[in-house]
């Protein structure tokens, strides 16, 4: 039962030009992500994973190559990004933040109200809907960011280390919440993280990246049954082996890049 491709990236290269030092952030990336797949990009900081995400989010343009997000429903937005915690807009209330994408697309008021209310409830934000973000904790702010992206109902979701700033306990809780919303909607997700544990818990497939030039060097399938819990990953010896495997790949990368710098 081969699924349909959702994202197709072909021969994509991105370079940043500066007078002193030019950088090849991404080199010849070829990647296909299937519909409904949850893919994590893991790599050391500065390996170009954020650049790849920003290209898909239409915030950067590739130097060479192309990508396609396949769609059947033209009224839907192609992609929405779950930004880091500080991407929640401070002068809009929780409700206005969640409704932001829908309002920008000028959907009927009735639809906006209904969908916003649904995701506020889903993320447990409904008691705080009229508050400003400054009154929320970090975890709550991140829920706003997640609700905003899901409410927009895009073809694919892009997530840029959404839980990086949270404490560990909150991170576990939000990861499980994210999985439960994701399971319900069946969206295609590309998720960036530098946490191996996070990638193991969330992904169907993990892509490891090298740095400068950014390339996908390894791919690991995670076929642990869903729904998954944080405990499942910790208890499973197979996952422990995968953790070690990923770490060994990345360790080499980190050390290589350090040697190059020196």
């Amino acid at each position, binding site marked *: 039962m081969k699924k349909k491709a959702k994202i197709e990236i072909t021969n994509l290269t991105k370079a940043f030009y500066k007078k002193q030092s030019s950088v090849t952030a991404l080199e010849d990336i070829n990647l296909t992500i299937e519909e409904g797949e949850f893919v994590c990009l893991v790599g050391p900081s500065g390996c170009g994973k954020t650049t790849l995400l920003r290209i898909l989010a239409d*915030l950067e343009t590739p130097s060479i190559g192309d990508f396609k997000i396949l769609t059947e429903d033209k009224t839907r937005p192609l992609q929405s990004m779950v930004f880091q915690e500080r991407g929640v807009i401070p002068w809009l209330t929780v409700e206005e933040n969640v409704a932001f994408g829908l309002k920008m697309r000028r959907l009927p008021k009735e639809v906006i109200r209904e969908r916003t209310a649904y995701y506020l409830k889903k993320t447990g934000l409904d008691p705080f809907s009229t508050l400003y973000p400054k009154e929320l904790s970090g975890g709550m702010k991140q829920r706003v960011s997640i609700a905003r992206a899901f409410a927009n109902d895009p073809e694919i979701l892009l997530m840029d280390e959404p839980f990086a700033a949270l404490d560990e306990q909150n991170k576990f809780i939000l990861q499980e919440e994210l999985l439960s919303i994701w399971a319900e909607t069946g969206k295609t997700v590309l998720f960036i993280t530098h946490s191996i544990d996070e990638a193991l818990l969330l992904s169907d497939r993990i892509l490891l990246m090298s740095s400068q030039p950014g390339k996908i060097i390894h791919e690991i399938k995670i076929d642990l049954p869903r729904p998954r819990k944080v405990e499942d990953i910790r208890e499973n010896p197979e996952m422990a082996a995968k953790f070690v495997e990923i770490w060994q790949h990345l360790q080499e990368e980190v050390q290589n890049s350090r040697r190059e710098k020196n």
Partner: protein
Amino acid sequence: MNKKITEVQENPFEIEQQEWRKRQRKERWKQMLTIASPVFMLMLWEFLSQTGLLDIRFFPPPTAIVGTFIDMTTSGVLFEHVGISLYRIFLGFLLGVVPGVVIGLLMGLYSPIRHFISPIVMALMPIPTLALLPIIIILFGIGDLSKVITIAGSVFFPVVINTVAGVTNIDSIYLDVAKNYGAGKVSFFTKIALPGALPVMLEGIQMGQAIALLTIVAAEMMGATSGIGFLIWTSYKAFLLQEMYVGLILISFFGYLFSLFLRGLQKKMVPWR
């Protein structure tokens, strides 16, 4: 008996409550100090001039100034001067703030406009508008208009500079959010640029208000036949120092009143801070 004492000592809330009370008392003491300082100043002044330690001709006692203030109010002279000054301040302030905000927003949003206008703003800003007053009087006459223009000119610069800074310093992640979620030009302006720039912009308007008061007094001293500045200047020349002090104190009062008002407005307009 003994047992009871240890119980009291061991209750953490009572200990904390005592600490809390101590802090409250300290807070109240500090508030008292804030109120006491101007009162103390006035009493010291009163005492020094009553006893002749300060020359009463230059420093009339506050009670005498209050007396003069009441006389001037009942005769209606004061209302005339205050009214005309407030009118000029208000009009000049608006005439400075509105173009300041509009041009500042344009400069902040469109970098070619910013690059074109900012050298002009930078070059004109250091020139005190008051130094241009002779020319302004030649162009606009000795009436209200020249005063209004002078104030507008002084208010304009802090407002325009802060508005530009407000727009250009908006965190780029909000621009990314707007773009990613498909904000159009109008939505971008009303949902991101304007509210994002507002806090810094209001700081500029606050500064403009202070400058407006400084300017009106000087402008009315140099070329006017009415207003608080005119009152101060003519009283001084006629050696009516009590009347002069009434003018000075009025300026101080209105400055305080306006900044209270603007601070209140700031809280209303930027509730998310």
